[in-house]
């Protein structure tokens, strides 16, 4: 299993979630976060915004689904500008459903 964590534009996160649900990845968690990228935030006029608000979309999927998830995210979150976000993929060793206590997704 892999955990896919994507930092996305807040206005686009919902569209990504809907597209993921359509592609069969219904379960997901999202969280409001603040961060910056290589561009060190953004400068608008004289004001420098060091940290920008993003939404972190987090989902855990089987190894073979990672590519599909990343493809959906890339196609939906893309605007071509700085700040589109980043996707991180990390290993997950176990998953448990609390309701049943069973292991697995």
């Amino acid at each position: 299993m892999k955990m896919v964590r994507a930092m996305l534009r807040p206005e686009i996160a919902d569209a990504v979630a809907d597209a993921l649900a359509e592609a069969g990845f219904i379960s997901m968690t999202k969280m409001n976060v603040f961060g910056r990228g290589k561009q060190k935030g953004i400068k608008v006029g004289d004001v420098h915004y060091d940290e920008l608000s993003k939404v972190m979309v987090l989902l855990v999927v089987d190894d073979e689904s990672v590519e599909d998830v990343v493809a959906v995210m890339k196609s939906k979150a893309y605007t071509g500008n700085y700040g589109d976000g980043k996707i991180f993929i990390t290993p997950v060793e176990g998953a448990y459903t609390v309701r049943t206590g069973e292991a697995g997704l």
Partner: protein
Amino acid sequence: MKEILAIIRPKQVSRTKDVLEKLGFPGFTAGCVLGRGKQRGIAGEITCELPADLHSVPGGSKYVPKRLVSLVVPDEDVELVVKALIKVNQTKQFGDGRIFVCPVDNVVRVRTSEEGDAALR
């Protein structure tokens, strides 16, 4: 070391805290998250009685508010903590949450620069 990420019901957080503290894991990080599971985010989250005229209103909520609890524990304690989290948070209803176990390479305690297992104790 493993990181245990548990997505649980907000109202179970204080009970979870108590149990984890009794087991010897007083430290953890929690955050407010929104999410949904296989049931697409509805699934009887409301425990109070709904007024009758609201029953006919269509639609549900796309996301359900949850708490994300994260703690890093030594390898040998993973099973204990996961079992405890399941036991405390289980109501047998949809929406009880999910637990993920992820590998962690290293831990550093900022105050003392200790690394690895020493930083966890």
